[in-house]
Every structure is written in structure tokens, then in C-alpha cells.
């Protein structure tokens, strides 16, 4: 397997006086947030976090406000200085990087999209998108050519000469997206980019991110507090609470086998048939099932399996890696749908 795009090990960020002593202190580092605040007047926003993000993956960090997710994503390029731990981007230790090296990382390798856009109000769309190229020394015609290409890619063609305050929120965030793409980085960090947008626009933008990910194959780290957004976009999801990781896995892992009561509550309203795959409802093969019945892949989403199962007169076989692992029938699907009904 390739080396990961981003690798985080034992990352801590403690705000407050004397915070740098806490990660190394066995007694203090074991305290809960409330106890820690009382004893040391420090807040541990990120506690002992470790994860890898594979190249080309969409990695979602999810949590409620105050869970430390925004701090975490800022620690990755040291917009916030981590207290201790290790962050490797392409195998290079970010925390050991000098000022110039760090700047190069931000200019060429990792860019960021912000919740409140962070556009320059005195610059046109074209000059906003080409800002990153300008500060790394690209000439005017070169950066404008590249920026026009990107503006077309994010669907803003024709708006090059507009100023940010002449655009709607959704369009402003397209500019933010364009700015992040213009430098052709390997990785894009998203800090709740669509939280400030209304629901319809948000759905459009999510689709846009999925499309761009398919077309460009960038690694993405996406912070959100919205579970449906996490499930829609994320190859894998890390759920955080009070700065700590609670569970990390694919969407159907989280919904199918929540690690604890917290995650269970979180995912209780998710329409399970839309997220879970057949793997979670496959039952052992019965002797009575004909061996020539229809076969479905175990990674198929349950909802997509409904037509095949409903039109089959007998249970349907489930295969994984070419091997039959079990069967499903109408009852197994109905029980999932019914569970969703009763939860809602």
C-alpha cells in the first residue's frame, strides 16, 4: 500500500497557561476535560489523536461544536501550533518544518477552504482565485490563465470580474474552492465549508465536491458537524468528542456497529437502508435455498438491493470476493426498513 498522504500520531493541542506540560504528564493527561479545566485552567482541544489519511481518500472529521475538529484541521498546517505529537504530510514532519518549508507546504501541497469563505473583498473573483499563485511569484498572464481554467471548473465562468460581495453565499464558496484548487495542491482541507449555506445550495456544493474529487482525485480532509454530509462524502469518518477520537471507520461501520452509546445516538436517525450494505444483514445460507438463485455483492447498499430481492421468489445469495457468504430475503430487508420507521 502507498504511504499515507497525512499521518497524525499522538497529536495534542492544549490551550492555556502551562498547557505544554499536560500531554507528557500521565496523571493530568488522563483527566476529563472538566477536571482538567478545574485543576490547570487549560482546555485540551485535541487529545492524543492518531489517524492516517490515504492518498485520494475523503476523510471526514465529525463532531459537535467544541469537539476540537476545527482545531485539529488547523493543526495539520500549523495555523494553530500543536502542543505535541507528530503530523506527517507525504512523510515530511510538519512540526519540525522551518518557516520557509511550512510556507512551501501551504503554497503547493495543502490548501484550505473556510466556513466563512475568507475571500479578499477588494479583489475580483479572478484575483481571489489567483492569489495563491501571485504570492508564490507567478506572472500575471500565467496566473490569470490558470485562474480562468479553475473558475470554469468550479462553475463560475462569466463572474471573473465580480467582487465577492456581489455573489451569493454558494458562489462565494465556489470562489473559495477555486482558490484552494488553483495552486494544484495534493490535499485540500475543508473546515465546515457548507455550514453557512442554505440546504439546497449545500446539496449542490456537496455534489460539486464529489464531482471534483472524482475528476481530480485529490486527498480531502473534511470537517463537518452534519452526519448526513459526513456519510455522503466520507470514505472514512472520524467521530470526535471533547477532543478525543470516539470511532473511526466507514459510514456503514459507524451505523452498523456503533462503538458506544454516543455514536449510537448520533446515528439513530440515519436511514439505515441508505447507508448499510448487505454485509450487515446477511444470514447463514439455508439448505432450502436454491443454489442458482440471484447473487448480489455484499458491498451493495441495502436500498439498491430492494428490487432484486422483491422480484425474486426465493432468498437471494450474497457473495464477497467471489465466494457465497450467505443469503438475504424480504424479511431481512423489511426489518431494516421497519427499524428506520420506528426510530423516526
Amino acid at each position, binding site marked *: 500500500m502507498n504511504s499515507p498522504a497525512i499521518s497524525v500520531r499522538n497529536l495534542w493541542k492544549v490551550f492555556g497557561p502551562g498547557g505544554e506540560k499536560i500531554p507528557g504528564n500521565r496523571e493530568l493527561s488522563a483527566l476529563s476535560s472538566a477536571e482538567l479545566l478545574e485543576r490547570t485552567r487549560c482546555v485540551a482541544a485535541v487529545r492524543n489523536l492518531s489517524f492516517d489519511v490515504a492518498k485520494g481518500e475523503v476523510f471526514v472529521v465529525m463532531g459537535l461544536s467544541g469537539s476540537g475538529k476545527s482545531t485539529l484541521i488547523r493543526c495539520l498546517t500549523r495555523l494553530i501550533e500543536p502542543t505535541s505529537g507528530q503530523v506527517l504530510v507525504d512523510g515530511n514532519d510538519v512540526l519540525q518544518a522551518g518557516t520557509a518549508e511550512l510556507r512551501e507546504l501551504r503554497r503547493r501541497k495543502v490548501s*484550505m477552504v*473556510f466556513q466563512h469563505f475568507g475571500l479578499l473583498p477588494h479583489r475580483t473573483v479572478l484575483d481571489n482565485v489567483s*492569489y495563491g499563485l501571485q*504570492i508564490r511569484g507567478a506572472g500575471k498572464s500565467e496566473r490569470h490563465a490558470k485562474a480562468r481554467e479553475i473558475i470554469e471548473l468550479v462553475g463560475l465562468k462569466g463572474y471573473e470580474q465580480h467582487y465577492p460581495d456581489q455573489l451569493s453565499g454558494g458562489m462565494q464558496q465556489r470562489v473559495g474552492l477555486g482558490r484552494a484548487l488553483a495552486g494544484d495542491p495534493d490535499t485540500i482541507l475543508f473546515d465546515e465549508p457548507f455550514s453557512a449555506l442554505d440546504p439546497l445550495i449545500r446539496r449542490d456544493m456537496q455534489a460539486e465536491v464529489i464531482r471534483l474529487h472524482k475528476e481530480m482525485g485529490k486527498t480531502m480532509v473534511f470537517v463537518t458537524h452534519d452526519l448526513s454530509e459526513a456519510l455522503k462524502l466520507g470514505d472514512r469518518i472520524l467521530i470526535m468528542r471533547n477532543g478525543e477520537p470516539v470511532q473511526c471507520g466507514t459510514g456503514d461501520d459507524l451505523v452498523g456497529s456503533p462503538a458506544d452509546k454516543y455514536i449510537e445516538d448520533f446515528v439513530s436517525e440515519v436511514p439505515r437502508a441508505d447507508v448499510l450494505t448487505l454485509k450487515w444483514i446477511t444470514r447463514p445460507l439455508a439448505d432450502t435455498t436454491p443454489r442458482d438463485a440471484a447473487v448480489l455483492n455484499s458491498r451493495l447498499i441495502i436500498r439498491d438491493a430492494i428490487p432484486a430481492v422483491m422480484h425474486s421468489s426465493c432468498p437471494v445469495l450474497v457473495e464477497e470476493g467471489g465466494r457465497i457468504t450467505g443469503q438475504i430475503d424480504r424479511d431481512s430487508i423489511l426489518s431494516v426498513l421497519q427499524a428506520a420507521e420506528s426510530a423516526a
Partner: protein
Amino acid sequence: MSLREGVTGAVLNPFQSLLTDTPFYVLVTVIAIVAYALGGWKLAALTTACLGVIIYLGLWSDSMVTLAGTLVATAVVMVLGVIFGVAMGRSSRVDQFLRPLLDAGQTMPSFVYLVPFLGLFGATRFTAIVAGIIYAAPVAIKITADGISGISPTVVQSAVASGSTPWQVITKVQLPMARQSLALAANQGLIYVLAMVVVGALVGAGGLGYDVVAGFVQTSIFGKGLAAGLAIVFLGIMMDRMTQAAAAAPARRIPSKSST
């Protein structure tokens, strides 16, 4: 005092000569054109009227001496305003350190620091300009600092996240976004410097301030003192209007969607 002589010889004298030696009609035309560029016909008419009053009062030459000193002092005030204002706006620690000093500078009566400057530089235009700068700089610094620190932190952070150097953040993000504050700082700096014109005349500023002071003490030229006071007012109105026009955001046309 080499600093004094250097500044007086290299900046003040040439600039003052430029203003006093240029024929008044040329200068009036130039100022009117600048005013037109900043604020259109109305402003051009206003500045011409103000200058007309000054010419009518027969105080053109003295007014130009005062204008030269005022503009040089304001330029220095703005340089200080940008340097310290940006430093304060970017760092709350610098702000905490400098703000009490600025507050103290503002509350101190101007005559108090005229005494040591008089001792240092003697009764010259330079002393008067320094006094004006000390009086006006705290205001300009504070306004600039507030403008810089009022910029949305997300915008600054996004510029840093794109890999900007601190210098790039200052010149491409913070100063352009604080444009209104900078213009207001220049406007206020100018007004404050102008307020010191008469006080500065006590330590050698010459120009209109001298005429006013002379009017106090010699009843025979009381009328001239009054006229000089009026000329200061009209000079002030003119410069205030011009800097305010510069501060107003330029009208921005809304581009049509298809224009690329």
C-alpha cells in the same frame, strides 16, 4: 542639529519653495484637478472657492508656507500611523504596550512638550512640525490599529493558509482592507496637525500661524491676524474635504455576467 538641518534642507525647503514660488493660478488649477479626480465637480468648485478666499485675503504666500509644513507633518504622521498601527493591529501585546503611551501623549497639553523640543531644536519650523507630529500621530496610529484589527480573522487566516509571508499579508490583505481606516487616519492626522499651526507659530512655524500670533500682540495688525485665522479655516475645509473624498470607496460598476 544635523537631523533638523537635514530634514529642513532636503524636504521642507524645496517643498515650501515649490508651493510659494509656483504662480498661484498654476497651483489653484493643479489642486482643482486633483479635487476633481477625487470628488468630481463639486469638490473642485469647493477647493477653488476656498483658495479664492485665501487669495482675496492677500495671504497666499503665508498660506502656502503653512500648507507645506502641514503636508510634510501629515506625511510623517501617516508613516508613523501605518508602522505602529499595523504593529498594534497585528499583535495584542504591542497594542497593550503602546496604547497607554499614546493615551498619555494625547492627554498631555501641547505646550508641555514644546518646551523640551524648543530646547533641542530651537525656534524653527522643524520644531513646530515635530510638535504637530507628536500631537497628531497618536490619533492616526489608533485609527489605523483599529482598522487593521477589525479585519475578519478568517480572511487573514486564509491568506496565511495559502502560504503568504507576513509582509504579503500586510501589503496584500491588511492594508488594502483597512483602506477606509487609513484614509480616515490621514484625514484626522491632517486636522490635528492643522490644529497645531497657531501653537507651532510660537516656536517658529511662521506662515499663517505667525500672522495670528502677531495679531494677538500688536493691535495694529489685529485685522491681519483675524484674516489669517479665516485662511486657516478655509485651508482646513479644503484639505478635510479632499481627504474625505479620498476615503470614500470608489464607485464600483457591477460587471455584466458575460464580460470576461
